[in-house]
């Protein structure tokens, strides 16, 4: 008649000893070897604490309908300018020329956030006024929601100088972010929600581009207009305005942020435990070998009675 294994279960063997004994010392030593080296392994293999991390977010950008425009005209000291700031316009007085500005923000993917800005500016100029350069600051409202609830006022700056008088200036580009330090993982961040251009000022230095950019670039989070393909078209006809046209895409960005405490612990734990499991398995076999072979003396308590063996 064939014999087969009808059922099986493991037995538990207990090794007992006093506190001050070789076996206890050995156990303490093995425990230390099991639990402490994995920590060193994961820590010394770089990147144990994830102090900073990246995430991607589609920022909520809106053109604030604020701008500062300077058109450099032919002839020393000739320029016309326009700003959406009453005090600036009043300050400029004779150089002020009011353009016709139209703008539209599209949302093609219907996620509720604008995807691009279509901007058009027509500056009426006399035929004798030749435009040789454009400096344009567009002001945007930049919002993040994912981690830090960040709101800031940011700018896109387009600058072009030509040797031939222009009729149209076309800007095609993206509004990109420039980040110097990580943002927080929670909370409301309004540090940079301040005016880039102090429109309440009536002093010339407030509208000096050097001062504007100096304070702007000192920020840790700024935006810039990434438009390597600007087109300067010549041939402005009789009684035609100078046209600036821009298509600026708002793109999804990767942001550096400082994770919170539980995020740190979570990823530390994941790394530590995965190495610990190997050590646990290995030293479990070591312990079995040591105590089974009585390399250190212990009292063995077997789960079955001795007399059965007789």
């Amino acid at each position: 008649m064939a014999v087969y294994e009808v059922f099986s279960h493991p037995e538990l063997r207990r090794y007992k000893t006093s506190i001050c004994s070789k076996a206890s010392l050995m156990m303490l030593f093995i425990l230390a070897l099991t639990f402490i080296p994995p920590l060193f392994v994961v820590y010394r293999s770089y990147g144990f604490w994830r102090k900073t991390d990246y995430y991607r977010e589609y920022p909520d950008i809106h053109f604030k309908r604020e701008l500062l425009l300077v058109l450099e005209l032919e002839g020393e000291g000739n320029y016309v300018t326009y700003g959406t700031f009453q005090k600036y316009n009043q300050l400029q007085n004779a150089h002020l020329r009011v353009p016709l500005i139209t703008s539209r923000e599209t949302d093609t993917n219907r996620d509720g956030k604008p995807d691009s800005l279509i901007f058009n500016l027509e500056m009426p100029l006399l035929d004798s006024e030749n435009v040789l350069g454009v400096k344009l600051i567009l002001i945007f409202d930049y919002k993040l929601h994912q981690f830090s609830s960040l709101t800031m006022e940011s700018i896109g700056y387009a600058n072009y100088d030509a040797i031939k008088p222009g009729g149209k200036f076309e800007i095609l580009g993206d509004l990109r972010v420039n980040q110097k330090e990580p943002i927080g993982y929670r909370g409301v961040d309004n540090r940079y929600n301040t005016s880039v251009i102090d429109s309440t000022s009536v002093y010339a230095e407030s509208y000096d581009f050097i001062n504007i950019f100096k304070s702007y670039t000192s920020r840790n989070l700024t935006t810039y207009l990434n438009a390597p393909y600007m087109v300067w078209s010549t041939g402005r006809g009789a009684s035609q305005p100078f046209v600036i046209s821009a298509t600026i895409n708002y793109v999804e960005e990767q942001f550096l942020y400082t994770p919170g405490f539980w995020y740190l612990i979570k990823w530390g734990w994941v790394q530590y435990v995965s190495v610990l499991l190997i050590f646990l398995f290995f030293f479990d076999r070591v312990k079995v070998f040591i105590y089974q072979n009585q390399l250190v003396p212990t009292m063995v308590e077997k789960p079955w009675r001795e007399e059965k063996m007789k």
Partner: protein
Amino acid sequence: MNVILRIAIVAYLFNATAGQEVPVPSFPETVITNPAFQEVAPCPCDLTAGNCDIGCCCDMSCTNDEKQTFTCIPGLEGGQKAPVKTSHCESNDYNKADWFPILCVHFESNALLGFFYQWQQTPKYLIQAFIAKLSTLFFYSYSETEERSLFDAAPDGFPGYMYGVSVKTISPSTGSNKFGILALPQKTLTGQCLNTAPVRYLTNITSSCSFQMTNALCSPESIFSARFFIQPSSNSTPSSFNVAGFDTTAAETSVSYYKLVNSASYIKSQQSFNQVVVPGQEYRFASETLPNSTCMDYCGNDKCIDYNAIPDPDIIPPTHNSSTLMPPTLDSGRCLNAVIDVNYTITWQGRTIQRLDAVVIYGDININDTVTNRYQVQYVHNYTGATNGTADNFYNVSESYKRSGRTGYQFGEPVFSGSPVYNNSAVPSYFMYVNTNLSRQMTVFTTGADGLCLNAMKKRLLFGEDISTSCSLYLNANSLTLANCNTLRKVIINKLNLMMPSEVLGRRGYNDPKNLNYWVDVFREDLTYYCIGSDLYPTFMSPVDNLTGICYNMTNGIHLDIMYAETGRSNNNSIYEILGGRISYSKATWKINCSPVNSQCGKNYAQPFQISTTVRFIKVPGNTPAPSAIYFDKPEEDDPNLCPGDRCWDNLFYPWTEKHLGDTINYTLPFFLICVLFLISYLMVTRPWW
């Protein structure tokens, strides 16, 4: 000594039918010797035969004296040393492996190992493999493979035109018709003019090109000659050509020639800004007549305006004299009969051009003047009565009409606006229709180069486009006295309201003027309080403030907010409807600035003041949004589209939500459960664990 390797260049002719190659050796082959046994290049740094190469110590051409003048190039026989591999135990690389120097590699360079390349066969014997190898590679060349022809046809291959195809011409001169392409100067590259750019079917063109008139340009073959453009069908000179209507049949072409009495508007003027806007001079509105007192409200608005009596704005007839085709002629420093404006109106139907009506305008241009030529092509559909889809022919017109979008508005199309007209003679008065004349439409200022309100014109609104424009008033201190301020305020409010007089906005892309349901009201800020509320004017109270050169609470801008919403979708296109409008005014204190430049501020020196018109489009939800039930620290936590920190409850089972792949939970949940069911039954059968 220098080793010169000569490799046989073998040209192969391929027999196209048999596919066999016939080798034609140009000169005898040099067999490359086996490098395993013979050194091919004993001195790699020896680059020139018979000359001593500097730094090359193995160059046999160098004398011992020469060798003393330079240091030898290091490496094998003067060659450049191969870089040490990063896996090499002697590597000094910055980017070595983490386990370095464990498992680093020791290299043994020993000639006795005999690792040499095998002798390769010449390509002659491997031609099939060589060709097979060639076919897997991409080669790029400078040769232009495209056909050098601008002639294109309808992409579907059928006769006649399709959208975007160039318009063809037929020359009736000789027996066989000569075909060409209808061309007009258009801008390309960075504003340069291409004189013979093709005109495309159903593509309107408005272009302008600037030229400096020279003696050479004033010739019958130049761009200024009428022969450059289309000529009437009746004209059968050898150089003339007609528009091809359908395939090879010509369409009727009529050309009207006009001559400008004064072509100043086409010539770049040399006026400076100070000549156009004289510093210190006052510039106000063109007409400042207010409505008579019985009809005027406190703010200068006309209460008893009669919508039916307001005529359409006058269209100024062009001041030309009719003429015939004349080539430009040079006459004592002037180019007579230079073509400066060409306008083609093409009537089309289906795939056919039915006729072309051209207007060619001559002008007399001085040599060396910079002239701006204007070119225009317009397509007009030959409407042949009502067909399907004209249920919205509200005006009962028999020609084609333009909608701003079917059902909803399209972005960039004109916004409908107007004022409802009531029959007040009947009791009770009843609604008749909405007056949509230009004088009753919402508009903004558009100014010329002078920026003056004096010469400002109107510009219609386009859906979705925020606009900001201004015009300037030049006022001196005498105009800014207390009494004048009140009049000026009324005049400005009157003018601003004339720019935005509409009381209703059209909701959809095309609106029935006889049905008020198609129109939404515009709410207008009531200025009466500011116009009569004397307590707002400190000047009335205190004689100290009753100064010359300052006006308080001047209305300096009108601002229209248009609320629109996505009210539905059709064929996955959004339907945008205008849901409401609001007009508000901005106020400012106008004050003459005294500075050394215009120290005459107490006198008659005028300074500019801007009055602005702005339009803003605001997208609102199509339905009333659900109110926020819970107070959140951050408002976006209530927004289901945003998921702050990526830990909102909606995304807990993210792979099964609609946000992951766009599948609804109704689809993903049963699919997931069926997968679980299959897994369980598989495990039940196989029982891998027991």
